[in-house]
Structure formats: C-alpha cells, structure tokens
C-alpha cells in the first residue's frame, strides 16, 4: 500500500524558536537518566528489581529464543532410540549450501526396524546458512531447526557434526515440531 509522507512540515513559531524544543528533548533524556539512575541502585545492591532496562548479560544470562528462531538443524531421535530419518535425501537436495551429506543404508532384516535408515548423516555447520529448507523439505519430521546458535569453534573440521552429535530426542523438539506443522501445513504439503 503506497502512502504519501509529507516532508515539508510547517513548523509553528514555538518549534521554529528551536530552544524550547531542545529543552523538551533534553528533559526526556534527563528524565530517563534519573529514573534509571535510581532504578539502578537496588539493582547493584544485588536485588533484582523490575527495571526498564532490557540488557541481558549475555554469557551468564541467556534469553529464550522465540520458537520460530532458526538455530542449527538437528535430527530427531525417536523414543526407541532410532533416528526418525529415512535417508530419502530430500534435505540434501533442498540444501542450497550443500552442507548435508547422507549415506543411506537399506534394511537387510537385522540392523534396523525401518526399511531405510541413514548410515551416516553429517551437517557441516561451517557451510550451513540456517535457511531451514531442510526442515521444510523433510517429509518424515526428522530434521528440525533448534534454538542453539552457539556453534563457533576454533577448528573448522570440528564444525562437521556426525549423526551422534546431531540426534536430539523428540521430546525436546516438541514445540518446534508443532510450529512446523502449523507453519508448513498452511501450504498443504
């Protein structure tokens, strides 16, 4: 929707005088200053006071990310300790950065209850762009974006996670699974 912004605002004589408006602006900042200054004192004495400051001391305190947040993709682990993944390779194809690498394994009757399962599943987080396409492509609800974004490392090779590192119990992913059902159900996949 296009709308027109009038940038030639006619100022009143009070605004043109400039100094009263400066003082008004300064009063706002000074009010914030004193309000926060006195709000700070109980805070520094160790009491957690309801304050208007939303700063979070990051490494010590962390915030809960919203459920739509796309952190590193993880694999869902069923209750019977087997991956939900069937190694169809759709996420591998959907991945625009080619960071997913799946070696599929077929069921010979002994190794696995499922017909198909991934023998190896690696995601290279050094390449991953956190787009969430793998999650969208997955027909089995097996790969999900988690809220974990702290994956910086000193060694690039360690950024390549194998299946043991990727698997996360389904119970931990419940909210995200529900979110994806709502999200991608909209387009009737």
């Amino acid at each position, binding site marked *: 929707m296009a709308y027109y912004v009038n940038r030639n605002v006619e100022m009143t004589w009070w605004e043109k005088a400039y100094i009263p408006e*400066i003082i008004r*602006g300064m009063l706002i900042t000074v009010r914030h200053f004193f309000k*926060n200054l006195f709000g700070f004192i109980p805070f520094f004495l160790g009491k957690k006071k309801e304050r208007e400051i939303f700063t979070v001391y990051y490494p010590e305190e962390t915030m809960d990310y919203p459920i739509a947040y796309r952190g590193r993709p993880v694999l869902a682990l069923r209750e019977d300790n087997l991956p939900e993944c069937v190694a169809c390779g759709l996420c591998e194809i959907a991945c625009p950065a080619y960071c997913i690498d799946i070696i599929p394994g077929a069921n010979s009757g002994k190794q696995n209850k499922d017909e198909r399962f991934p023998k190896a599943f690696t995601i290279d987080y050094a390449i991953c762009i956190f787009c969430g396409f793998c999650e969208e492509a997955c027909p089995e609800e097996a790969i999900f974006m988690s809220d974990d974004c702290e994956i910086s490392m000193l060694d690039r090779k360690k950024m390549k996670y194998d299946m043991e590192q990727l698997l996360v119990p389904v119970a931990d992913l419940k909210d995200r699974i529900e979110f994806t059902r709502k999200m991608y159900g909209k387009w009737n996949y």
Partner: protein
Amino acid sequence: MDLFSFTDEFLIDLGLTLLKIGFILAVTVGFFAPVLTWVERKQSAIMQDRIGANRADIMGFTALGLFHIIADALKMFAKEDFIPQGANRLLHTLSPIIALVPALLTFAVVPFGGKYELWGHQVNLVISDLDVGLLFVFAIASLATYGYVVAGWSSNNNWSLLGSMRTASQMISYEVTMGLTIIGVLMVYGTMQLDEIGAAQENFWRWGIFLQPVGFLMFLTASIAENKRIPFDNPEAESELVAGYFTEYSGLKFGMFFMAEFIEMVTIGAIVTILFFGGWHIPFIETQDIIDTFNFSWLGPSIANLITMGIQVGVFFAKVCFFIFIQMTIRWTLPRFRYDQIMKLGWKILLPLSLVNIVVTGIVIMLLK
C-alpha cells in the same frame, strides 16, 4: 622585588603557584579527563535505558565499570603508534600536542576560588592573575584549531583533510560569535580579569545568567561548537568521515585528542561557570558569612578561611560538573547538524544575535546610569 632574591615572600608565592598548578593538573588530567570517559559511557547508557560499560573487573570486582578507565589507558599504551605512508612525520606527531596543550593552558587564568587570607598571606586561587584573562583564554583556545587542522593535513588522508577543513571553518565561524558574546559580559562587569568577574557575582541576582541570558545561551552553543562535540561534530562525523581529522591516529596520540576533548569540556564548564554562573559563590550566601560561621574563638580566622576556601572550590567544581552534565546530555540528545545548517546557525543567527545583544546591553547600561 629583585627577581633573584629568594625572600620568604617569594618562596611562599612560588610554592603556592606550584601547588595551584599541581592542583589544576591533578583535577583536569588526573581526575576529570579519565573519569569523564567513564561518565560519558555510563550516562549515555543510563539515558538510553542500557546498563553501560561494566565488564572490566579486578578479581571479580567491577566498581560500576570504573576499571574501564584503566583498561582504556592500557589499551592505548599497547597499541601500535602508526604513521601512515606519505604522511608528514613531524607534523603528524606534533599535532596532538598542539591540540592538547591549549586545552590545559587555558586553566592558567581560570580562577577556581576567591581571595583568602591565610596566616597573614593573601591567597588568590588563580594560577596567573592576568589583566587580559578573558582575551588570553580566547587567544589560547583558538590556537587549538592549528592542532586539528595540521592533524588532518599531515596524515595524507582524504577524510582527515575534509575533517580538518570543516574544523577550520566551524571553529573560525563560532569564535566570532564567542568573542562577540563575551563583549556583553565585559560591558556588564567592566573587567577582563576572570577572578574579578567571578568576585563581582557574589550577589545572586548579579550572576551573568540574569544579566546576559541570551549571551549565556549563545556562549554555551558556540563553545560546544568549538569543542566539536555532537550536535556540532561535523569535523569528526563518524558516519561521513570515518573519524575526521584523527582518522589516522592510534595509540596515545589518539588518546591525546580524546583527552583534549574532555579537558576542553571542563574548560568550557569552568569558563561558563565563571562568566555566567556565579563562579565559586553559593546563591544568597556571601563569602564573609561563611567565614564568620566558621570563625570560632579556638579555630581562628585562618582556619575559617581555609574551610571557606575548601567549600567554595567544591562549589565551583560542582558547578563545572553540572555544566559537563549539560554538555553530555546535549551530546546524547540532539542529532548532528548538517554542514550548511551549522554555517547558517553560526553566521545568520548567532552572529546577528550577538551583535544585537551588545547593542541592547549597551542601551540598558546607558539607561541605568
């Protein structure tokens, strides 16, 4: 007095002068310059609903972020002292000094207290009681322009040169206003000696802010513009010129520019206090009243004078702190002017206003005679 005869009087004078110099250096370089870096961070943070610097700690103790001062100093010492290729090495090294020295030198004539009678000796709390004190302040303050211009020119960098050109034009434009504003004050008090101007404001209703309200506003504006802080920070506009004239400076040379800015803030606060805000006087209380209050039988007049001196120096620096607070508030409230707006404000608004101020002051003085 013979110049080389070391009489007692001479030695006492020498000692007192050295004490005063030491006091001023300790207060400006040792206290205000470092603490103001902390104040600026913390005040801006609290003003903007943030917490501000508080991560530097010694043994887990942060002291509200005061250790950031030490961390900053250590960082500046440890940095590479970089001189860019094609720069004028001599001028590049010299210009921070040229910028810093005038900021300190103006304090030579700024009184931070009145005259006190201590054990039969007259103590005047000003390092150098010049007859042309006010002119001296402006002469020295305008020298600082050279530091900034030379800094930009010598570092062989386009941004620096643009910054220094803007510095030159801005400082020259606003010095005109500043000088003309001062004339109103001179007409009212009839002296250029800063300590006499301060002493003349003992009566609350004789403060410069009541006698020269327009002059006060214009002087504050012009002096903030002289100091090149936001909203007049075109010479170092971060979003346009990287860092303006000190783009190519690092380490302690950058620290000197930084320190010059903060000391200039103190200087502005001190001069505004002396000229417009009653100097070292407490409203409605005369100096003699304070002396009489403390003049008990067993204390003696000298001790009473000493206590009064302490109180009045404290009052003076409290006022200076108030003006620093105002400057910081302005700096964190207002956005930067555009270059043409600065020039318009300087030449088309402040200059005519200051001329009108002189005329009106003259007419009023004539009528009151």
